[in-house]
Structures are given as structure tokens and as C-alpha cells.
């Protein structure tokens, strides 16, 4: 009985350790790509986990940029095939647009 209890605590402890590891390890973070094509972000809305990296790739013949609606970040002008990467550490909702063509809008939900 004493041994069984000890074993249960051990298993529980290991599980907690693993879960903690998964939450803090960047190695588990994903890269998510948003393509800019025909003056639109695709997909326009994405849901990611905290710590994931979003990579914007401009597939158009002209330049675009990525600007947070609240001004918290912005890319430089992105020429054709240029990339802009941004890691989102905190949960929340981030609305963004193209600084040159503000009718182009997108949204990132960080969980």
C-alpha cells in the first residue's frame, strides 16, 4: 500500500513535469505562414499558441507591409518574396493591416 501510493505520486510528478516542460519549451512552438497575395492576407484570421512564430511572405508584384492596428509593431516595406517574422508570446487578439494598402486587414488570436 505504501509502495503503491509512492508509485502514484511518482507518476503524477512526472506528468506535471512534462506538462510544465511543454508550456515553457520553445522547441514546441510552431511556425505559421501567412501569405500576401492579390492584396490580401491569407489566411486573414489565424489562431496560434503563445510562443508561435508567424511568418508573413509577400507573394505580390508590389510591396506590402504588416502594421499592428495598435501600433505595437510594424514591418519595413516587403518586396516580392520578402518575409517578416514575429513571435507572439502573450495570449490575446492582434489586429493588423498593410501600412500601404490599409484595406488589407488580418487578425491573429494567440491562445
Amino acid at each position: 500500500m505504501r509502495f503503491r501510493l509512492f508509485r502514484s505520486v511518482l507518476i503524477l510528478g512526472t506528468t506535471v513535469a512534462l506538462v510544465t516542460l511543454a508550456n515553457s519549451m520553445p522547441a514546441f512552438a510552431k511556425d505559421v505562414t501567412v501569405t500576401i497575395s492579390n492584396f490580401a492576407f491569407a489566411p486573414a484570421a489565424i489562431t496560434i499558441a503563445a510562443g508561435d512564430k508567424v511568418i508573413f511572405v509577400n507573394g505580390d508584384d508590389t510591396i506590402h507591409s504588416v502594421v499592428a492596428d495598435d501600433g505595437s509593431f510594424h514591418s519595413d516595406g516587403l518586396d516580392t518574396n520578402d518575409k517578416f517574422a514575429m513571435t507572439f508570446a502573450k495570449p490575446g487578439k492582434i489586429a493588423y493591416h498593410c501600412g500601404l494598402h490599409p484595406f488589407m486587414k488580418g487578425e491573429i488570436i494567440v491562445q
Partner: protein
Amino acid sequence: MDDDITAGRKLNRRHALECMVWAGTGVIWTLSGGVPKALSLLDEAQAAEAASSSFTFLQISDSHVGFDKEAPVTAIDTLHEAVGRIKALSVQPSFMLHTGDITHLSKPDQFDDADQIIGSTGITTHYVPGEHDMVDAAQGKAYMDRYGKDSWGQGWYAFDQNGVHFIGLVNVVNLKAGGLGNLGAEQLAWLEKDLAGRPSSQPIVVFAHIPLWTIYPQWGWGTDDSAQALAMLQRFGSVTVLNGHIHQIIQKVEGNMTFHTARSTAFPQPAPGAAPAPGPVIVPADQLRGMLGLTSVNYTVGQRDLAITDSTLA
């Protein structure tokens, strides 16, 4: 030109339509007694006469130095060609207006190249920025360091030439999600002050990158708060509004206001709604120059309408 200049508003409007036939090369603007009219770059006799009694200026726009998707022809090549046309004019314009998108990506070497090529004309050039001139890491510092020294706020200013008041406005800064071009409260307050006390008979020329009237909001071709600026200009007998941004000629006359957009010297864009998106139209090299151009404007003392002439690089 004299007959047209002495004619009333209707004739001027008709003439404006005639001028649009020239659309595509470059527009020479003439201010006649307060109203801009375009002169054909090709009609040297008229241009010479206009210069003796008034003055002519050129509008150059959307040079996009750094753009190369019309390969083998680059934006630098066609800017060189445009400048070649300007140098060859028998009557040199008093000055030039550049209505923005000087560069494609706000890079220092692109500003350098544009400066060197346009500067080789030896003609004083007044600039306003396009959104492509604002995409450096500091969002506009590169433009302001180079062109903004004698300006207010984020680059707006005014100057006078032969009694005509020229106002350069900036509507490409801090564009809001879902919005159009934007002047902002600070600039509108400056404009109100700049216009206060001016006689309504003084001819006004306003120039800015994005059109100051709504052409196609789905593509951002308009300015959210331009109505406030236009309301301040309403009392003036002659107002000419010159814009770029849309890489094609669209003209409108409303009361005492004439609105005109210039061609690009770099690449054409689709007519409003004619394509899924307003990206560059890539055309065969032999067609490209017919879609690029300059605008000339001639002003004649005592005339209300400025003469606006567009001409292509073909």
C-alpha cells in the same frame, strides 16, 4: 489657346476633355488667371506663348525607383526617358511637382538615384511623399531627412509662384486599418491657417499623392478627411487639385475645382475595378511607354482655368 482662355467655363471643360486626348505623355500645367489648363508638350508654340505671359510647371509622379517587374525595362530606365523628354522641351517649366512614390521601397540608394536623375534637369522640384516613401524602418525619416527640411508636420508646406498659391499636402502617413488616405487634424488646422486671409480670387493649386476625391474606395483610392480640406477651398474661384497614386489619368471638374491624376513614369495600374487587385499591370515592353507619362500645366495671368496636358513616353 487664347480663344479657349477667354472662353467661359463650358469651353474650358470641353478643352479639358480635348486635353485628355493627349493623356499619357506628361502633363504641362498652365495657370490662366487662376484656373489650371493643360498644354500639350508637343505644341511648342503654345507653350512659348504661355510662358511669356504666365508660367508653366510640370507634374511628375510615381517614379517608383527600384521597381523592376516590367523587366527588361526598369523604373530607372523610364525615369531617365521622362527626364530626357523634359530636357528636350523648348520652353523649360518654371518648376516641377513630384506627387510621391519617388522610390519603391524608401531605400537610400533609391532616393539617391531618383535625386540624381530628376536633379539632372536643373529644374527646382517640389516633392510630397507617397506611401512607398514611408516604409523605411523609421517610417518616413528617410524622406523627411531629404525633403522635409522646410516643411510642417510630416512634410506639408506651401509656396507662391506668380501670385498662384501652391499647397503640398501629405495623406500617406499613419493610414488606419480599413481606411483611405488621411490628412489628419494637425494638417487640416495648418491648412485652415494657411488659407485664412487669402483673397478668394487667388488661384490655388493643391498637390498630394493619394487622390483628394474618392475614385475607388475598395482599392483605397481616396482620402478619408479630404472633404474638410475641400470645404476650406470652396470659396476660392480657381482650385486645381493634382494627385498621383493611381498611375492613370482621371479628371473631374466640380464647380471651381478641377481634379486631375497623373500617369506614373514607372508602371501602369488597372482602371478602377478592372482587375481583382490594384497591382502593377505587366505589359509587353513595346506597350509600356504608351501607358507612362508626364503632366504639364500652364497658368495665364487673368484666366481662371489652368491648362493641363498629359503626354506619354511613347
